[in-house]
């Protein structure tokens, strides 16, 4: 069986005694779009930099396209397209110069796809980078990452600064890449974007992986929100005894609760209470992430 394009095993990175990553392990399978999520400072960019060989891990190892990024051999990067979270391009060059110089370093001869990307994204090529808006710089960054049709795309906050139309165009681009068999590691804060695009999610918090699962399974396990209204007084204590139920609000005539697990035990308790209305909101990953992110300050080491 062929090795997955990205394999991370017990990766640990320490900066001046502070642990930014702690025993991080996950993998990205070929052709998969993996969402890599986490609050600010959780260790997303540190992990990505280790994968690209920019940071040397303190311990553990990574394998990217069959290579150890820390070994010093940069040839594997020919198959990687990278968009950094904080894109910094040489300020005095024009967009066109940036693309042609980086294509030159990549020895990219066929520029047909690059030109297609320029057209699709409406990239500004004639003005110096320093005069471009954040969105226009981001378009150049996306073109730099995609233009050589890499086997693996590592994208850190790719839609930052893009307007909704361009975000849609980017989503189309990503789906086309995945359909062509390319592998994508997508780091993002935008949960909507992630839920729409990825098949699997890895969540990092405080330098540790806290979730690694498919979106389908996470959605099944994510809490559903149930709103009950009553035209009479009710005792809500019984609701709280149902396994998986947390009452989040209880006011006169209205109860809101979150619930995980099978619905039958909850319905058995609700029915005798004779609610006026029952509204159940489908499971939303956002609720799950808010719970995860809320715990970020609990013993979380700082990350770069």
């Amino acid at each position: 069986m062929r090795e997955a394009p990205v394999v991370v095993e017990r990766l640990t990175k320490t900066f001046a005694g502070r642990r930014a990553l702690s025993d991080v392990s996950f993998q990205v399978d070929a052709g998969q779009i993996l969402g890599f999520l986490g609050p600010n400072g959780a260790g997303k960019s540190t992990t990505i930099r280790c994968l690209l060989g920019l940071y040397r891990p303190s311990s553990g190892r990574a394998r990217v396209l069959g290579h150890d990024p820390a070994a010093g051999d940069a040839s594997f990067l020919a198959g990687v397209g990278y968009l950094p979270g904080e894109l910094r391009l040489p300020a005095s060059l024009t967009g066109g110069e940036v693309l042609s110089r980086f294509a030159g370093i990549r020895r990219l001869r066929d520029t047909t796809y690059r030109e297609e990307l320029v057209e699709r994204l409406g990239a500004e090529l004639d003005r110096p980078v320093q005069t471009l808006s954040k969105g226009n710089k981001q378009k150049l960054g996306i073109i730099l990452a995609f233009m050589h049709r890499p086997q693996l795309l590592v994208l850190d906050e790719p839609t930052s600064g893009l307007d909704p139309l361009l975000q849609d165009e980017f989503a189309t681009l990503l789906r086309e890449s995945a359909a062509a068999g390319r592998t994508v590691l997508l780091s993002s804060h935008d949960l909507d974007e992630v839920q729409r695009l990825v098949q699997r999610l890895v969540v990092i918090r405080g330098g540790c992986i806290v979730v690694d699962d498919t979106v389908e399974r996470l959605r099944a396990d994510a809490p559903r929100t149930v709103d009950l209204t009553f035209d009479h007084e009710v005792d809500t204590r019984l609701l709280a005894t149902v396994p998986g139920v947390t009452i989040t609000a209880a006011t006169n005539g209205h109860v809101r609760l979150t619930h995980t697990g099978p619905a039958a035990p909850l319905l058995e308790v609700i029915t005798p209470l004779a609610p006026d209305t029952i509204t159940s909101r489908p499971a939303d990953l956002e609720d799950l992430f808010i719970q995860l992110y809320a715990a970020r300050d609990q013993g979380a080491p700082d990350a770069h």
Partner: protein
Amino acid sequence: MRTDVLRLDLRLRRRMLTATGLAAGAYLLLVVAAYPAFKHDSGLDAMVAANPAAAAAFGINGSITSTAGWLDANMYANVAPLLALLLSIGYGATAIAGQNADGTLGLLASLPLSRTAALAQKMAALLLVSAVVPGASLLASLAGPHFGLTPDWANLLGVSLTLTLLAFDLGAVALLVGAITDVRGAALGGASAVAGAAYLLNALAPVVDAVRSIRWLSPFSWAIGSDTLAAGVEPSGLVALTALGVALGLATFAALRRLDIH
């Protein structure tokens, strides 16, 4: 050999290199054009002879009305090294630590180009940056014969070469400090401090007994020593400058391998 990184770095500093090169050339042209007015001024030599310590601080020794003395005193002992080091130390501090701080090194390092290959190109760019002022000065001095100033061309070529190597070595100090500390200010400050100390050591040695015996430690003495334009470059100086550059380059390779690039 690939030159993409070299060309990119030179492109990013194009205006500064062009302006400094033109300024150095224009300045030397003025120096050369002024020579006829001073070449028979024995009072100027008497003034230098009467104030040897002050003159030494500006790198001036012996007669300054001779062809070699005039070029030395007005360009090669002070202004030329200053301008050449300005460019080379500036580039050395930017090429690793500066570019890592502004985030452009990270984008470069994510391309299929090893750190060794990238640094080799940056060292080559540093050599070219170091050659700008000596090259422009050499070109401007070609006008000398029109003003009665005809230097020994072989010696002038030799000094241009050693001046280039001197600037390269001190730029390489900035590169090395940048690769070790990842702080542009430290690279700039560290290399400037080394350059300042080395300059004073060489310049004051003829008049200060305390430093005379250790003058050989200064790369300035290997490059421009005393009376180099008249007597020619010592081969040992050329070898020492080359060896220092190679040693600094190797140390920078080792430091860069360990650097975290953002």
